[in-house]
Protein backbone atom coordinates (compact mmCIF):
# COMPACT_ATOMS: atom_id res chain seq x y z
CA UNK A 1 0.00 0.00 0.00
CA UNK A 2 2.83 2.35 0.94
CA UNK A 3 4.34 1.76 -2.49
CA UNK A 4 1.15 2.79 -4.29
CA UNK A 5 0.88 6.00 -2.31
CA UNK A 6 4.50 6.86 -3.06
CA UNK A 7 3.83 6.33 -6.79
CA UNK A 8 1.01 8.84 -6.70
CA UNK A 9 3.02 11.29 -4.60
CA UNK A 10 6.02 11.30 -6.93
CA UNK A 11 3.86 11.69 -10.06
CA UNK A 12 1.92 14.58 -8.52
CA UNK A 13 5.16 16.18 -7.36
CA UNK A 14 6.89 15.98 -10.74
CA UNK A 15 3.75 17.19 -12.55
CA UNK A 16 3.36 20.13 -10.15
CA UNK A 17 6.96 21.29 -10.52
CA UNK A 18 6.71 20.87 -14.30
CA UNK A 19 3.52 22.90 -14.63
CA UNK A 20 4.88 25.56 -12.29
CA UNK A 21 8.02 26.04 -14.37
CA UNK A 22 6.11 25.99 -17.68
CA UNK A 23 3.48 28.38 -16.39
CA UNK A 24 6.11 30.84 -15.26
CA UNK A 25 8.06 30.70 -18.54
CA UNK A 26 4.84 30.94 -20.54
CA UNK A 27 3.78 34.10 -18.72
CA UNK A 28 7.19 35.70 -19.23
CA UNK A 29 7.61 34.76 -22.91
CA UNK A 30 4.02 35.31 -24.07
CA UNK A 31 4.29 39.10 -24.49
CA UNK A 32 7.57 38.66 -26.42
CA UNK A 33 6.05 36.00 -28.67
CA UNK A 34 2.96 38.19 -29.25
CA UNK A 35 5.21 41.14 -30.13
CA UNK A 36 7.19 38.93 -32.53
CA UNK A 37 3.97 37.91 -34.25
CA UNK A 38 2.76 41.50 -34.67
CA UNK A 39 6.17 42.53 -36.01
CA UNK A 40 6.25 39.55 -38.36
CA UNK A 41 2.78 40.46 -39.68
CA UNK A 42 3.81 44.08 -40.37
CA UNK A 43 7.08 43.00 -41.98
CA UNK A 44 5.26 40.52 -44.21
CA UNK A 45 2.65 43.09 -45.24
CA UNK A 46 5.39 45.59 -46.18
CA UNK A 47 7.46 42.92 -47.95
CA UNK A 48 4.45 41.76 -49.94
CA UNK A 49 4.28 45.19 -51.61
CA UNK A 50 8.08 45.39 -51.78
CA UNK A 51 8.46 48.45 -49.51
CA UNK A 52 11.89 48.80 -47.88
CA UNK A 53 11.99 49.36 -44.11
CA UNK A 54 14.44 49.33 -41.19
CA UNK A 55 13.85 47.59 -37.88
CA UNK A 56 13.45 50.91 -36.04
CA UNK A 57 11.00 52.59 -38.44
CA UNK A 58 8.79 49.55 -38.99
CA UNK A 59 5.75 50.91 -37.13
CA UNK A 60 5.93 54.38 -38.75
CA UNK A 61 6.47 52.95 -42.19
CA UNK A 62 3.60 50.52 -41.74
CA UNK A 63 1.17 53.20 -40.58
CA UNK A 64 2.13 55.67 -43.30
CA UNK A 65 1.87 53.09 -46.10
CA UNK A 66 -1.37 51.35 -45.11
CA UNK A 67 -4.84 52.14 -43.92
CA UNK A 68 -6.09 49.22 -41.84
CA UNK A 69 -9.82 48.42 -41.76
CA UNK A 70 -11.65 45.57 -40.12
CA UNK A 71 -14.25 44.28 -42.56
CA UNK A 72 -16.33 41.22 -41.86
CA UNK A 73 -14.02 40.20 -39.04
CA UNK A 74 -10.94 40.36 -41.26
CA UNK A 75 -8.14 42.92 -41.19
CA UNK A 76 -7.77 44.48 -44.63
CA UNK A 77 -4.89 46.81 -45.41
CA UNK A 78 -5.59 49.40 -48.14
CA UNK A 79 -2.79 51.24 -49.88
CA UNK A 80 -3.19 54.59 -51.68
CA UNK A 81 -0.94 56.68 -53.92
CA UNK A 82 -0.23 60.39 -53.35
CA UNK A 83 -3.44 61.45 -55.09
CA UNK A 84 -5.49 59.23 -52.84
CA UNK A 85 -6.28 56.59 -55.43
CA UNK A 86 -6.42 52.98 -54.25
CA UNK A 87 -3.33 51.11 -55.49
CA UNK A 88 -3.69 47.81 -53.68
CA UNK A 89 -5.24 45.68 -50.97
CA UNK A 90 -3.47 43.29 -48.63
CA UNK A 91 -4.92 40.67 -46.31
CA UNK A 92 -4.21 37.40 -44.57
CA UNK A 93 -5.08 34.09 -46.22
CA UNK A 94 -5.02 30.73 -44.49
CA UNK A 95 -5.89 27.08 -44.87
CA UNK A 96 -4.63 23.55 -44.34
CA UNK A 97 -1.17 22.61 -45.51
CA UNK A 98 0.31 19.12 -45.65
CA UNK A 99 1.08 18.96 -41.93
CA UNK A 100 -0.83 21.82 -40.35
CA UNK A 101 -2.31 25.26 -40.96
CA UNK A 102 -0.54 27.68 -43.31
CA UNK A 103 -1.11 31.41 -42.97
CA UNK A 104 0.16 33.88 -45.53
CA UNK A 105 -0.15 37.52 -46.58
CA UNK A 106 -1.28 38.35 -50.09
CA UNK A 107 -1.22 41.73 -51.80
CA UNK A 108 -3.39 42.36 -54.84
CA UNK A 109 -4.01 45.19 -57.26
CA UNK A 110 -7.47 46.83 -56.90
CA UNK A 111 -8.78 44.46 -59.62
CA UNK A 112 -8.44 41.72 -56.94
CA UNK A 113 -6.95 39.46 -59.62
CA UNK A 114 -3.35 40.53 -60.08
CA UNK A 115 -0.96 39.38 -57.36
CA UNK A 116 1.52 41.99 -56.16
CA UNK A 117 3.25 39.80 -53.63
CA UNK A 118 2.93 36.77 -51.38
CA UNK A 119 4.60 36.17 -48.00
CA UNK A 120 4.29 33.19 -45.64
CA UNK A 121 3.46 34.04 -42.01
CA UNK A 122 3.39 30.65 -40.35
CA UNK A 123 3.39 26.99 -41.34
CA UNK A 124 4.21 23.49 -40.04
CA UNK A 125 5.56 21.97 -43.28
CA UNK A 126 8.48 19.52 -43.46
CA UNK A 127 11.83 21.31 -43.06
CA UNK A 128 13.75 21.21 -46.34
CA UNK A 129 10.72 20.10 -48.37
CA UNK A 130 7.39 21.85 -47.88
CA UNK A 131 9.07 24.46 -45.69
CA UNK A 132 10.68 25.84 -48.85
CA UNK A 133 7.43 27.73 -49.54
CA UNK A 134 9.15 30.47 -47.51
CA UNK A 135 12.04 30.68 -50.03
CA UNK A 136 12.23 33.91 -52.00
CA UNK A 137 12.63 31.97 -55.26
CA UNK A 138 9.26 30.29 -54.78
CA UNK A 139 7.37 33.34 -53.51
CA UNK A 140 8.71 35.81 -56.09
CA UNK A 141 7.14 33.70 -58.86
CA UNK A 142 3.71 34.90 -57.76
CA UNK A 143 4.46 38.58 -58.41
CA UNK A 144 2.38 39.78 -61.36
CA UNK A 145 0.52 36.49 -61.78
CA UNK A 146 -3.20 36.73 -62.47
CA UNK A 147 -5.74 34.68 -60.54
CA UNK A 148 -8.10 34.13 -63.49
CA UNK A 149 -9.83 31.77 -63.55
CA UNK A 150 -7.55 30.53 -60.78
CA UNK A 151 -3.87 30.25 -59.88
CA UNK A 152 -2.24 26.88 -60.66
CA UNK A 153 0.90 25.56 -58.98
CA UNK A 154 2.22 23.00 -61.46
CA UNK A 155 5.35 21.06 -62.42
CA UNK A 156 6.18 23.03 -65.53
CA UNK A 157 4.59 26.46 -65.44
CA UNK A 158 6.22 28.01 -68.50
CA UNK A 159 5.31 31.68 -69.00
CA UNK A 160 1.58 31.43 -68.46
CA UNK A 161 0.14 34.26 -66.44
CA UNK A 162 -1.81 32.09 -63.98
CA UNK A 163 0.80 29.35 -63.40
CA UNK A 164 3.79 29.04 -61.09
CA UNK A 165 6.31 26.21 -60.60
CA UNK A 166 5.63 23.80 -57.72
CA UNK A 167 8.29 22.78 -55.19
CA UNK A 168 10.07 19.54 -56.05
CA UNK A 169 9.29 16.90 -53.45
CA UNK A 170 6.49 18.92 -51.90
CA UNK A 171 3.56 18.43 -54.26
CA UNK A 172 1.00 18.37 -51.46
CA UNK A 173 2.28 21.61 -49.94
CA UNK A 174 2.37 23.27 -53.37
CA UNK A 175 -1.21 22.20 -54.06
CA UNK A 176 -2.20 23.45 -50.61
CA UNK A 177 -0.85 26.93 -51.44
CA UNK A 178 -2.80 26.84 -54.71
CA UNK A 179 -5.98 25.91 -52.85
CA UNK A 180 -5.51 28.50 -50.12
CA UNK A 181 -5.03 31.33 -52.63
CA UNK A 182 -7.97 30.36 -54.85
CA UNK A 183 -10.41 29.58 -52.05
CA UNK A 184 -9.66 32.58 -49.84
CA UNK A 185 -9.68 34.98 -52.78
CA UNK A 186 -13.05 33.90 -54.10
CA UNK A 187 -14.47 33.92 -50.59
CA UNK A 188 -13.12 37.40 -49.80
CA UNK A 189 -14.39 38.71 -53.14
CA UNK A 190 -17.93 37.46 -52.62
CA UNK A 191 -18.28 38.18 -48.90
CA UNK A 192 -16.01 41.04 -47.89
CA UNK A 193 -14.47 42.99 -50.75
CA UNK A 194 -17.60 43.15 -52.87
CA UNK A 195 -17.83 45.63 -55.75
CA UNK A 196 -19.72 48.00 -53.44
CA UNK A 197 -17.04 47.88 -50.76
CA UNK A 198 -14.24 48.31 -53.30
CA UNK A 199 -16.10 51.37 -54.68
CA UNK A 200 -16.30 52.85 -51.18
CA UNK A 201 -12.57 52.45 -50.56
CA UNK A 202 -11.40 53.35 -54.07
CA UNK A 203 -10.43 56.86 -52.88
CA UNK A 204 -8.92 57.95 -49.62
Amino acid at each position, binding site marked *: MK*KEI*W*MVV*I*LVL*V*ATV*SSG*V*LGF*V*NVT*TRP*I*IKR*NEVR*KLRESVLESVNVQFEADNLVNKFESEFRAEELGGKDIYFRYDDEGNLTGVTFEISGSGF*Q*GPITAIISLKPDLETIVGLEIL*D*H*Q*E*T*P*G*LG*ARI*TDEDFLRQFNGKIVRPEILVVTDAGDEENKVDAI*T*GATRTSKAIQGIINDTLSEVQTNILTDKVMERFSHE
Partner: protein
Amino acid sequence: MNNTKDIFTAGLWEDNPVFRQMLGLCITLAITNKVANGLTMGVAVFFVLTASSFIVSLLGDSVPRRVRIPVFMLVIATFVTLVYMFLRAFFMPLSQALGAYVGLIITNCVILGRLESFSSENTPWDSVVDAAGVASGFGLALIAMSVVRELLGFGSLFGVQVLGSGWTPWVSMILAPGGFLVLGLLIWVQRAISPVEEG
Protein backbone atom coordinates in the same frame (compact mmCIF):
# COMPACT_ATOMS: atom_id res chain seq x y z
CA MET B 1 38.84 11.24 -15.41
CA ASN B 2 39.58 8.48 -17.89
CA ASN B 3 36.15 7.10 -17.15
CA THR B 4 34.54 10.44 -17.99
CA LYS B 5 36.29 10.52 -21.35
CA ASP B 6 35.25 6.93 -22.08
CA ILE B 7 31.61 7.66 -21.32
CA PHE B 8 31.66 10.70 -23.60
CA THR B 9 33.39 9.08 -26.59
CA ALA B 10 31.19 5.98 -26.34
CA GLY B 11 28.10 8.10 -26.98
CA LEU B 12 29.84 10.20 -29.58
CA TRP B 13 31.34 7.40 -31.66
CA GLU B 14 31.46 3.72 -30.61
CA ASP B 15 27.82 3.63 -29.54
CA ASN B 16 26.67 6.48 -31.78
CA PRO B 17 22.88 6.67 -31.41
CA VAL B 18 22.21 6.88 -35.16
CA PHE B 19 25.00 4.84 -36.76
CA ARG B 20 25.23 2.11 -34.11
CA GLN B 21 22.04 2.02 -32.07
CA MET B 22 19.77 2.97 -34.99
CA LEU B 23 17.70 5.28 -32.80
CA GLY B 24 16.03 8.58 -33.68
CA LEU B 25 16.03 7.66 -37.37
CA CYS B 26 12.68 9.32 -38.11
CA ILE B 27 13.98 12.78 -37.26
CA THR B 28 17.34 11.96 -38.85
CA LEU B 29 15.76 11.08 -42.18
CA ALA B 30 13.24 13.92 -42.12
CA ILE B 31 15.22 17.03 -41.34
CA THR B 32 18.72 16.39 -42.72
CA ASN B 33 18.37 17.90 -46.17
CA LYS B 34 19.64 21.29 -44.96
CA VAL B 35 22.64 21.81 -42.68
CA ALA B 36 21.02 24.66 -40.74
CA ASN B 37 18.08 22.40 -39.79
CA GLY B 38 20.41 19.57 -38.75
CA LEU B 39 22.48 21.89 -36.58
CA THR B 40 19.48 23.48 -34.84
CA MET B 41 17.92 20.09 -34.15
CA GLY B 42 21.28 18.88 -32.80
CA VAL B 43 21.53 21.82 -30.38
CA ALA B 44 17.90 21.46 -29.24
CA VAL B 45 18.33 17.72 -28.59
CA PHE B 46 21.60 18.44 -26.75
CA PHE B 47 19.85 20.80 -24.36
CA VAL B 48 16.81 18.57 -23.77
CA LEU B 49 18.88 15.41 -23.29
CA THR B 50 21.49 16.83 -20.89
CA ALA B 51 18.89 18.72 -18.82
CA SER B 52 16.52 15.73 -18.57
CA SER B 53 19.43 13.39 -17.76
CA PHE B 54 20.50 15.63 -14.92
CA ILE B 55 17.01 15.80 -13.41
CA VAL B 56 16.35 12.07 -13.81
CA SER B 57 19.68 11.13 -12.23
CA LEU B 58 18.87 13.41 -9.28
CA LEU B 59 15.50 11.70 -8.85
CA GLY B 60 17.32 8.35 -9.05
CA ASP B 61 15.84 5.62 -6.87
CA SER B 62 12.99 7.74 -5.56
CA VAL B 63 11.04 7.04 -8.75
CA PRO B 64 9.20 3.70 -8.44
CA ARG B 65 9.93 1.50 -11.47
CA ARG B 66 6.28 1.20 -12.43
CA VAL B 67 5.85 4.95 -12.98
CA ARG B 68 9.31 5.71 -14.34
CA ILE B 69 8.19 6.10 -17.98
CA PRO B 70 5.48 8.70 -17.16
CA VAL B 71 7.97 10.58 -14.98
CA PHE B 72 10.63 10.54 -17.72
CA MET B 73 8.10 11.71 -20.31
CA LEU B 74 7.00 14.56 -18.05
CA VAL B 75 10.59 15.71 -17.57
CA ILE B 76 11.36 15.49 -21.31
CA ALA B 77 8.11 17.20 -22.29
CA THR B 78 8.81 20.03 -19.88
CA PHE B 79 12.21 20.78 -21.38
CA VAL B 80 10.96 20.42 -24.96
CA THR B 81 8.16 22.90 -24.26
CA LEU B 82 10.71 25.27 -22.72
CA VAL B 83 12.84 25.02 -25.88
CA TYR B 84 9.75 25.63 -28.03
CA MET B 85 8.72 28.79 -26.14
CA PHE B 86 12.33 30.01 -25.99
CA LEU B 87 12.81 29.60 -29.75
CA ARG B 88 9.53 31.36 -30.55
CA ALA B 89 10.41 34.24 -28.23
CA PHE B 90 14.02 34.79 -29.21
CA PHE B 91 14.73 32.86 -32.44
CA MET B 92 11.52 33.20 -34.44
CA PRO B 93 13.00 32.32 -37.89
CA LEU B 94 14.63 29.12 -36.56
CA SER B 95 11.43 28.07 -34.85
CA GLN B 96 9.57 28.54 -38.13
CA ALA B 97 12.16 26.54 -40.08
CA LEU B 98 11.84 23.56 -37.73
CA GLY B 99 8.07 23.82 -37.44
CA ALA B 100 6.48 20.77 -35.88
CA TYR B 101 9.77 18.96 -35.37
CA VAL B 102 10.65 20.74 -32.13
CA GLY B 103 7.59 19.19 -30.49
CA LEU B 104 8.58 15.82 -31.88
CA ILE B 105 11.80 15.81 -29.81
CA ILE B 106 9.53 14.49 -27.04
CA THR B 107 9.16 11.23 -28.93
CA ASN B 108 12.85 10.95 -29.83
CA CYS B 109 13.76 7.50 -28.54
CA VAL B 110 17.44 8.48 -28.18
CA ILE B 111 16.41 10.62 -25.20
CA LEU B 112 14.05 8.17 -23.51
CA GLY B 113 16.62 5.42 -24.14
CA ARG B 114 19.39 7.27 -22.30
CA LEU B 115 17.18 8.18 -19.35
CA GLU B 116 15.97 4.61 -19.03
CA SER B 117 19.28 2.80 -19.46
CA PHE B 118 21.79 5.24 -17.99
CA SER B 119 20.66 8.37 -16.13
CA SER B 120 18.24 6.61 -13.82
CA GLU B 121 21.04 4.35 -12.52
CA ASN B 122 24.08 6.64 -12.47
CA THR B 123 25.39 9.76 -10.71
CA PRO B 124 24.38 13.22 -12.00
CA TRP B 125 27.91 13.93 -13.28
CA ASP B 126 28.23 10.67 -15.23
CA SER B 127 24.70 11.10 -16.57
CA VAL B 128 25.37 14.59 -17.86
CA VAL B 129 28.62 13.43 -19.50
CA ASP B 130 26.83 10.46 -21.07
CA ALA B 131 23.98 12.70 -22.29
CA ALA B 132 26.44 15.23 -23.74
CA GLY B 133 28.30 12.43 -25.53
CA VAL B 134 25.19 10.81 -26.99
CA ALA B 135 23.68 14.17 -27.97
CA SER B 136 26.95 15.16 -29.67
CA GLY B 137 26.93 11.82 -31.47
CA PHE B 138 23.37 12.48 -32.60
CA GLY B 139 24.32 16.01 -33.72
CA LEU B 140 27.38 14.65 -35.53
CA ALA B 141 25.21 12.20 -37.45
CA LEU B 142 22.65 14.90 -38.33
CA ILE B 143 25.35 17.26 -39.58
CA ALA B 144 27.21 14.55 -41.53
CA MET B 145 23.97 13.53 -43.26
CA SER B 146 22.85 17.07 -44.00
CA VAL B 147 26.22 18.17 -45.39
CA VAL B 148 26.12 15.36 -47.98
CA ARG B 149 22.44 15.85 -48.80
CA GLU B 150 22.42 19.65 -49.03
CA LEU B 151 25.63 19.66 -51.07
CA LEU B 152 24.38 17.12 -53.62
CA GLY B 153 20.69 18.04 -53.50
CA PHE B 154 20.89 21.84 -53.57
CA GLY B 155 24.58 22.43 -54.40
CA SER B 156 24.79 24.61 -51.30
CA LEU B 157 25.94 24.58 -47.66
CA PHE B 158 24.10 26.62 -44.99
CA GLY B 159 22.04 28.02 -47.88
CA VAL B 160 25.17 29.43 -49.58
CA GLN B 161 25.68 28.15 -53.12
CA VAL B 162 29.07 26.41 -53.26
CA LEU B 163 28.82 24.24 -56.37
CA GLY B 164 28.78 26.32 -59.55
CA SER B 165 25.88 26.73 -61.95
CA GLY B 166 27.24 23.78 -63.96
CA TRP B 167 26.11 21.49 -61.13
CA THR B 168 22.82 19.69 -61.67
CA PRO B 169 21.23 19.15 -58.24
CA TRP B 170 20.36 15.54 -57.40
CA VAL B 171 16.73 16.10 -56.53
CA SER B 172 16.39 12.64 -55.00
CA MET B 173 18.99 13.63 -52.36
CA ILE B 174 16.57 16.05 -50.69
CA LEU B 175 13.74 13.52 -50.82
CA ALA B 176 13.25 10.46 -48.63
CA PRO B 177 15.19 8.01 -50.86
CA GLY B 178 18.30 10.19 -50.63
CA GLY B 179 17.98 10.15 -46.85
CA PHE B 180 17.94 6.35 -46.71
CA LEU B 181 20.81 6.10 -49.21
CA VAL B 182 23.09 8.53 -47.36
CA LEU B 183 22.21 6.99 -43.99
CA GLY B 184 23.15 3.54 -45.28
CA LEU B 185 26.42 4.78 -46.75
CA LEU B 186 27.39 6.65 -43.58
CA ILE B 187 26.63 3.60 -41.40
CA TRP B 188 28.93 1.62 -43.70
CA VAL B 189 31.69 4.25 -43.40
CA GLN B 190 31.37 4.44 -39.62
CA ARG B 191 31.55 0.66 -39.29
CA ALA B 192 34.49 0.44 -41.66
CA ILE B 193 36.42 2.89 -39.46
CA SER B 194 35.60 1.10 -36.20
CA PRO B 195 34.30 -2.41 -36.92
CA VAL B 196 31.61 -3.95 -34.71
CA GLU B 197 33.08 -6.51 -32.33
CA GLU B 198 31.13 -9.71 -32.79
CA GLY B 199 30.62 -11.34 -29.48
